[in-house]
């Protein structure tokens, strides 16, 4: 096991040279590897000088959680253990983060809902930890199908939410996520989402920097709230509930605090733009009248549909949202200029992304937002299903 006191000004406790996020993401030479999402998660955490992680088994995130445990055994992560269930785990990582640790955990599907009460508490306490959500949908009936219904429940928890399309994006986003979440003017938790199985279990080519470099450690004394470590004034201090005071000030403080957390997410925009190279990525025909607005694997499938539409002589483009919170409203409005029909293909049954797009763009653009297709966790969102949806709209009654 490592000791935190082994850290120097130039190297972390496991002997990795400390570098800037820009260097790690954009400048360090990279070599090609062939890895699953779970394996690449380990590679990302290995390069992030992580203090603490708590784990719990649930498919499909279990392997990523095991591999973080291996990093602990190898001396890269300071604190690691298995918690009793997701509610306990999310409270344990909250304790780790409040005590000044760079903290990460992972979960999936039903575990997300079991832990739910914690997420609003995380943002309320401005704890900048990272949750990697490997989405799988929610029971019942029991499911481990490709689905991302649980993301809907996280939308209004006061956390940042980023969505990675593939293994490479998961690696880069994991590193960027700590950096943005820990900015003193942001300092709210962050969820990095990938679709379970498609990303967690799929082996892909991925470009990685060497593993002898890592991020500078988290400095809790730059946080907007002092860490709970008895090392920083004020001595008299409570982390959250103003309600105990039961007077007008407590109500005003509570309200302004909640606005402040939402504002903190907004303040993450310039950082996210820099480290993610834009909150949306666009592929396809610039002057298309058909567009797909999607995130994660659904955007990958949309790109396949886009290529098929090109063969049919129909111009289209894919607008991939890389952040859901903050929502890239301006970028989306810009990308939808001239678009007549925008389709929102989703794996979940409720269409939370379509609802988001509609509510954010309401009254601001003439594009028709078509919520679908949705496969509700039933199948892998084939390009044919997307094509069918498009052709029924642009060529009604005649099919694809």
């Amino acid at each position: 096991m490592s000791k935190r006191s082994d850290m120097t000004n130039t190297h972390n406790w496991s002997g990795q040279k400390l570098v800037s996020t820009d260097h790690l993401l954009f400048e360090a030479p990279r070599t090609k590897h062939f890895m699953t999402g779970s394996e690449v998660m380990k590679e990302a955490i290995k390069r992030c000088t992580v203090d603490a992680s708590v784990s719990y088994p649930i498919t499909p995130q279990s392997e990523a959680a095991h591999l973080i445990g291996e990093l602990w055994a190898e001396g890269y992560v300071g604190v690691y253990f298995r918690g009793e269930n997701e509610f306990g785990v999310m409270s344990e990582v909250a304790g780790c983060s409040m005590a000044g640790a760079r903290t990460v955990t992972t979960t999936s599907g039903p575990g997300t809902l079991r832990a739910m009460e914690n997420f609003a508490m995380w943002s309320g306490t401005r704890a900048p930890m990272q949750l990697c959500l490997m989405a799988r949908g929610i029971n019942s009936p029991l499911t481990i199908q490709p689905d991302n219904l649980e993301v809907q429940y996280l939308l209004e928890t006061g956390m940042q939410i980023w969505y990675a399309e593939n293994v490479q994006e998961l690696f880069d986003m994991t590193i960027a996520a700590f950096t943005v979440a820990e900015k003193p003017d942001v300092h709210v938790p962050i969820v990095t989402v990938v679709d379970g199985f498609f990303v967690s279990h799929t082996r892909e080519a991925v470009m990685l920097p060497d593993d002898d470099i890592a991020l500078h450690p988290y400095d809790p004394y730059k946080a907007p709230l002092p860490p709970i470590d008895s090392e920083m004034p004020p001595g008299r201090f409570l982390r959250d509930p103003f309600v105990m005071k039961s007077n007008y000030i407590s109500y005003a403080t509570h309200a302004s605090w909640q606005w402040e957390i939402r504002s903190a997410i907004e303040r993450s925009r310039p950082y996210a733009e820099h480290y993610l190279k834009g909150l949306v990525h666009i592929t396809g025909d610039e002057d298309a009248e058909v567009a797909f607005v999607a995130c994660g694997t659904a955007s990958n499938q949309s790109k396949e549909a886009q290529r098929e539409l090109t063969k049919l002589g129909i111009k289209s483009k894919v607008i991939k949202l890389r952040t859901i919170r903050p929502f890239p409203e301006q970028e989306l409005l810009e990308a939808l200029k001239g678009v007549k029909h925008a389709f929102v293909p989703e794996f979940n049954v409720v269409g939370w992304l379509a609802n988001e797009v509609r509510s954010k763009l309401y009254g601001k653009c003439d594009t028709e937002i078509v919520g679908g297709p949705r496969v509700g966790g039933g199948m892998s969102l084939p390009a044919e299903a997307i094509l069918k949806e498009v052709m029924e709209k642009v060529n009604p009654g005649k099919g694809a």
Partner: protein
Amino acid sequence: MGLDIYKINPEFREIMPQEIIDLEEKATWSEKMQKPRGIKELPETKELLEEHSLCAGCPEAAALRYVLSALPKPEDTVIVNSTGCTSLMFPHIALHTVHSLFGNQNAVASGIKRVLDWRFPETEKDVVVLAGDGATVDIGLDYTLQSFFRQENITTICFDNEVYANTGGQESGMTAKGQVFKMAPTGKKFEKVPMWELATTSGCHYSVNMTASAPKAVAKAVREAILVAREIGPTYLNIYTPCILEIGLSANEGLGEMKDQDKDRFASYKHVSPEAEAFLKKCKEEGRL
């Protein structure tokens, strides 16, 4: 750093309230003490609790004063709290405290303790959980017991008032069988949960059931429990602090109620593991108790 955080910036000294200045000058911090802290200093020194917002005569407030007076090293102690009457007092405690959710206190404390040990391996940092019986035994039982199973180095203190007091007097798992409370309009149907015994079988090295009738006894148990938790493993204190409001007593009747229960539901129970016993003996010889 510990004690340094209570030193007032000279530039601000003039505008500081007296109680903040007193904290620096007249509180009993372990660094300044020749002997272990205790209730004997209460009348002469600044307490770590600044007033409180509980009902007049509430035994819980008295018990909290005893607990705070006996912390072995308050300047390096973090207290984790839960929702309930106890949480009303927490804004008045001059230490780093956490209120997180209802019932997750032992999970939060586990994370804090492990990270403090990771970040400050050379400094003894104590983590103490202080919550009511609803938080400890009902909604939070899983997290309480699991922290014992995992042998977390934390002390758990349950202020057992045998009722959900802050929400208006509902039955809890710690309510005595037969007692009529809200949500048990015909009386509680099952026995009071023997939490102190569960603590023992779940791996606590020190488990006590007592009332807060004798301040010195509370202080002694707190000191011993925290030292054992620091060195050996989890410890548990179950302290009766009756809700005089819900059982129909006056403000001056709390002490009598506790004394009565010293012979009944809170008859003294004390488990000390062999390792803890040897360690406490050593502490006594070294003057740490």
